[in-house]
């Protein structure tokens, strides 16, 4: 009946205090795949990057809703982070290491790089004036002790 083994859908206001909340939710959902501590940290960090982008870049000084969706299929988890904010004019540029659209905010520009390092796949769709969707996948590695 459902497309996935397990799935969840969460919406929250784009307040920075919800970054930790989103990490906790994503981590708790992903834990169902029995990840290692490192894999769990990878997911929490990647989610934190995507959610932070939605909050500070997508919505900037405005507020809006951020959507976090998760799906489990076998040993793989897919997360989707969506905002209806300003959108990214040049996604390839945004994904370059160290690029930041807000140098005055003293940001490292490493958000997408960390997402790409810690997750197996990262896809970004965006439309200026409509918003951005980031889809990330991670597969847990089989362990003899599990």
């Amino acid at each position, binding site marked *: 009946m459902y497309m996935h083994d397990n799935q969840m859908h969460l919406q929250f206001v784009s307040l920075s205090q919800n*970054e930790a909340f989103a990490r906790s939710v994503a981590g708790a959902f992903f834990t169902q795949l029995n990840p290692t501590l490192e894999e769990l940290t990878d997911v929490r*960090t990647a989610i934190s990057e995507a959610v932070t982008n939605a909050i500070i870049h997508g919505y900037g000084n405005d507020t809006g809703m951020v959507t976090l969706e998760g799906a489990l299929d076998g040993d793989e988890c897919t997360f989707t982070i969506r905002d209806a904010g300003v959108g990214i004019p040049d996604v390839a540029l945004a994904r370059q290491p160290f690029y930041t659209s807000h140098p005055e905010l*003293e940001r*490292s520009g490493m958000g997408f790089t*960390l997402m790409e390092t810690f997750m197996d796949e990262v896809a970004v769709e965006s439309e200026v004036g409509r918003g951005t969707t980031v889809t990330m996948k991670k597969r847990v590695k089989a362990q003899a002790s599990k």
Partner: protein
Amino acid sequence: MDLNAIRTGQRVKVQLSGELDQHSADGVRDALDALIADGSVRELVLDMSRVSFMDSSGLGVLLGRYRTLNARGGRLLLSAVPAPIDRILKLSGMYSLVDRA
């Protein structure tokens, strides 16, 4: 995030506790800047042992403090960095700028 700081001569050592993300970054930035506002501070040592989480927003805070200190010929040092945070620091090339204490 909580900070505990000790000044000894030109060195300020700060123990950070908690999560360093975009939400906590402004407060940490302001607190660290206040601690190194005195131009005679030449070394800032950050004890990272109790940092339970850090993402790229934390990198921005570290980078900014490095720049402030570097401008006056000072240094930023990191001590007791937990393994997950060490990975992020290596990935970003931070260790070419800051030293391990």
